């Protein structure tokens, strides 16, 4: 098994480019009611990285951009636990396998990595749209079996070591959206949730200018609600042991 991991690492090390899977434009009903009226929102065409960014890939990044090494990155961009699971600032060691998704990365570091691939972090809507797909349909969210399968992961204790990337792809050819890690989104700081977002007569009207905090629809979709709650609680320099990322690119495709 160790051998397999090493071979995987060697293959990945020589991989030319990460794959970005094209996903067409669509109208999409998000778990977040982004607008007061509950109409679907338009998501433009984009391409999403087929897998989360791995330790090996992130190591290659900090090697070419040493300002993002854990011993160089300013505290305002990455807190003290940034890449703390690596053996050294320039070495993975035994606690961070090359093919494991990189975690303990801040939003700023994730953005910088994506920029190095001429990409950006996906928006929440882009992530949610891709993550709604099963292996056969683009929107499996109302399929109880699929729902239960995605939810099972969240019930696992998070103490166990992270698996390596490479679970079965979904309809878009994207892997590991569920069941491996939490993921940063570009607009993590747009997910403003109040304790009780049913209250339209918003006590936070002063705190949140405009229409107030987000409403959540589809309250049975616990898997997504947990992700939103987690992202909305983070600051951009924060890192956690289960939080990684993947990147996205905008596509200039005609809307259907």
């Amino acid at each position: 098994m160790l051998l397999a991991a090493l071979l995987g690492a060697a293959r990945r090390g020589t991989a030319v480019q990460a794959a970005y899977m094209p996903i067409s434009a669509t109208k999409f009903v998000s778990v977040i009611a982004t607008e007061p009226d509950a109409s679907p929102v338009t998501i433009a065409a984009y391409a999403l990285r087929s897998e989360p960014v791995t330790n090996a890939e992130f190591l290659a990044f900090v090697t070419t951009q040493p300002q993002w090494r854990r011993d160089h990155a300013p505290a305002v961009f990455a807190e003290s636990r940034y890449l703390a699971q690596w053996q050294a600032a320039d070495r993975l060691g035994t606690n961070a396998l090359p093919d494991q998704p990189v975690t303990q990365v801040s939003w700023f570091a994730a953005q910088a990595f994506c920029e190095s691939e001429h990409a950006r972090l996906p928006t929440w809507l882009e992530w949610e749209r891709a993550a709604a797909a099963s292996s056969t349909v683009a929107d499996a969210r109302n399929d109880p079996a699929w729902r239960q399968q995605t939810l099972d992961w969240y019930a696992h204790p998070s103490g166990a070591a992270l698996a390596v990337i490479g679970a079965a792809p979904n309809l878009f050819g994207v892997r590991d959206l569920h069941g491996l890690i939490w993921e940063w989104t570009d607009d993590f700081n747009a997910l403003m949730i109040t304790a009780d977002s049913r209250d339209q007569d918003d006590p936070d009207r002063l705190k949140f200018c405009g229409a107030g905090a987000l409403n959540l629809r589809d309250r049975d979709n616990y898997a997504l609600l947990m992700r939103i709650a987690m992202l909305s609680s983070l600051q951009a320099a924060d890192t956690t042991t289960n939080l990684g990322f993947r990147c996205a690119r905008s596509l200039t495709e005609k809307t259907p």
Partner: protein
Amino acid sequence: MKISTFFAARFVLACACVAAPTFATSAHVATTALPGDSVYQLDVPLVDQDGRRLHLADRRGKPQLISMFYTSCQYVCPLIIDTLQKTEHALAAADCTRVEVTLVSFDPATDTPPALKKVADERHVLSPRWLLTRTEAPQVRKLAAVLGIQYRELQNHDFNHTSVLILLDADGRIVARTDKIGEVDPRFVAEIERAIAR
């Protein structure tokens, strides 16, 4: 006696804060390395209400009150400017010119220098002590992230955002913040006085 001193101080202050401002050249040019926890680590190119180009880090040297807003906002954003002015007026007379104000727009598409200038004129705020600025969209997201400000653009082109005043020390470190909008937060005023005294 105490009361009369207080009123005298308030009177002098009202004059001092609208008096011709000292220009940016009076701020000392920092030669020491920027601290790792300074907001100025982030490169934010700005254009102000007079169309001048600068970088956020050029504000290094004096304590800074910083917040984010947008000019077409009807409700909270005017209150943010109100609160900043009230907060300045709560400072001791000599102190209000020793702190600067930088506002950055959430809405670069609309908030051109003339749009910013219009608000600056309406609110009688003087450049360069008060700068109303814009930056490009990707930098808006990064600046909000570094300041811990949440915001989201709605389809009707309004923005939801946290309303907060943030105090940076002379080197750009966040030393205090308040989400009390519409009235002066005495704890925040005390922090500004402390930052000025340093």
